[in-house]
């Protein structure tokens, strides 16, 4: 029995190492002074973070990511929240599994396949090489997250709360604005966060749809790894990992505020 326990600990630790070590190993490299991504690090500096915000390609890609990420978040959150509100009333008719299947398809279809189709079709409507085109492409991938998140919160709302509001004299629109939406807010927020994160990390559709002017941070990292790898990648990765932890905190906090009710 003891031998089994030792084996469990060793194996579990080894796999945790496999899972986490690559993420941890990349962090110190972002502070290297050298132009090589190697250990041992000769000297520490923040020159690559400097590079990230001063070099034109990196700076523009960060700005582009923020523009496209905000656009995607706004579009996906509005479309997804409206859709979830509409689906909710007839959730039993549509049946949840059907909704899940239909709206998860964009996540299932390989991005390359969708990218080829989008490039072909967007070219016809002059959507390639435009911010709008990239935002639309990202929204297709992001909107399922919003629908799923908002729908699950909406279904947890006691319908009697809305009946109570109506009985107290609230018009249906007021019920929506003052009761339903405030209660659904945690789901809307986490949907929006997922949408932004999806856009931030999206590469494949961007490759197919975006032009040189819409190069996002992820797209820039992709070509930088492919063509000309430098510690700026590690610096960008550092920003991403810190951002991830930040976003995870927001989500956990918004869940907690929901649980407190």
């Amino acid at each position: 029995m003891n031998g089994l326990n030792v084996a469990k600990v060793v194996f579990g630790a080894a796999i945790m190492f496999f899972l986490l070590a690559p993420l941890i190993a990349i962090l110190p490299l972002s502070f290297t002074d050298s132009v090589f991504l190697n250990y041992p690090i000769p000297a520490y500096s923040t020159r690559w973070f400097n590079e990230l915000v001063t070099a034109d390609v990196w700076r523009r890609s960060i700005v582009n990511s923020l523009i496209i990420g905000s656009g995607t978040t706004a579009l996906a959150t509005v479309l997804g929240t409206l859709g979830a509100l509409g689906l909710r009333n007839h959730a039993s008719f549509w049946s949840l599994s059907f909704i899940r299947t239909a709206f998860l398809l964009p996540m299932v279809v390989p991005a390359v396949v969708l990218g080829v189709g989008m490039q072909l079709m967007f070219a016809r409507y002059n959507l390639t090489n435009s911010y709008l085109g990239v935002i639309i492409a990202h929204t297709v991938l992001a909107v399922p997250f919003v629908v799923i998140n908002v729908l699950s919160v909406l279904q947890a709302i006691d319908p009697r709360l809305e009946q109570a509001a109506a009985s107290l004299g609230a018009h249906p629109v007021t019920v929506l604005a003052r009761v339903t939406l405030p209660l659904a807010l945690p789901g809307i927020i986490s949907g929006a966060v997922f949408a932004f994160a999806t856009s931030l990390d999206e590469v494949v559709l961007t490759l197919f749809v975006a032009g040189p002017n819409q190069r996002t941070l992820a797209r820039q990292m992709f070509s930088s790894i492919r063509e000309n790898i430098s510690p700026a990648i590690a610096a960008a990765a550092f920003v991403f990992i810190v951002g991830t932890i930040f976003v995870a905190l927001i989500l956990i906090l918004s869940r907690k505020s929901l649980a407190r009710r």
Partner: protein
Amino acid sequence: MKDDRKRSWLVSLALVAPLVLFLVFFFAAPLYTMVSAAISDPIGARALPHTSAIIERWDGTSPPSPEMQTAFAEDLRAIDDDQLFGDLVRRLNSAKSGFRTLMPKTRNAVKADPAANDLVAIDERWSDPAFWQPVKTATASTITDRNLLAAVDLERSTAGDIQEMPEGSSANRATLIRTFVVSLSVTLACLLIGLPYAMIAASVDGWKRQLLLGAVLLPLWTSLLVRTAAWFILLQDNGLINSSLTALGLINSPLPLIFNRAGVIIAMTHVLLPFMVLPIFSVLIGIPKNLMPAAASLGAPPLRAFWNVLLPMSTRGIVSGSLLVFMSALGYYITPALIGGARDQMISSVIAYYATGAANWGMAGALGLVLLVATLILYTVYLRLSGEEQAKR
């Protein structure tokens, strides 16, 4: 009463409509466009209307008749759109090389002299039926199975029968097999690591379980690009892995870990492992904890209890996880594109090459269709399984 229900339906419809229209226009329509690119072949009939009418009666082997040549020359004179001409040349050249030089030469000649209808006089190659066969097929129909066949290394003979492409002329079948093998290897690697890991996570509780699950979730939440970049840096010839092994004296020259299949499998296993661990874990924690002690009390030694009790009960999680990993691996692009070798490409890289590099939409669409169908079949199986699961509960 009825009006009321109708109104509530209308409101719901109005709320869902923007989302549905958005997905129809920007999700379904692109996929349709891709599929139609794979099977449509409108250029020949559009650019060569006269030829199309006359060449229909040609048997495909006898020397080209003067009428065919006259019709072809007339069609060429009528083409003003350089874009259309370029598409036509590309279309014909993809069936037989040589058109790229032959066509501009012929076009210039017939445009210069409105009476020059003897094409053989312009270029000897026009006497060869082999140059007229592509014209006949290109003008015969606006849809084609050429790309779909080519996606699995097949083609139609001049007689119209399906046959193997000549050895070495296309590598699509090899790519498909390679994609399958790599995906299968990644799935197996994930299963070998993920199953015991999920079992360990399910067997402990409290902070230990949180820690084990956190280690799976953190990479899942981290940017895919960051994870790929990390592996790129680690796997380099002078990366952390090789330099540590050298420093320990285990190796003398760096192991080739990047730009080959080993690197792809390692990195993809890391990326997809959560999709194996989480479904298995969720099935395992649903199994009552006292089953193993119960089996033991009934006289089953631990290994037999595992084999006869725990494993059969977790089959569903294992199958779900494997399907998820395999399905995702099939269409993976970023990791293989950055870490894989140039001669060891998976299907998604080939699709991307056809689309962005070669502008061969037909082939990109055809391979895309193969990948799409494979993915959707796997997804359907996956849904069936998880649907049955829910029905059972």
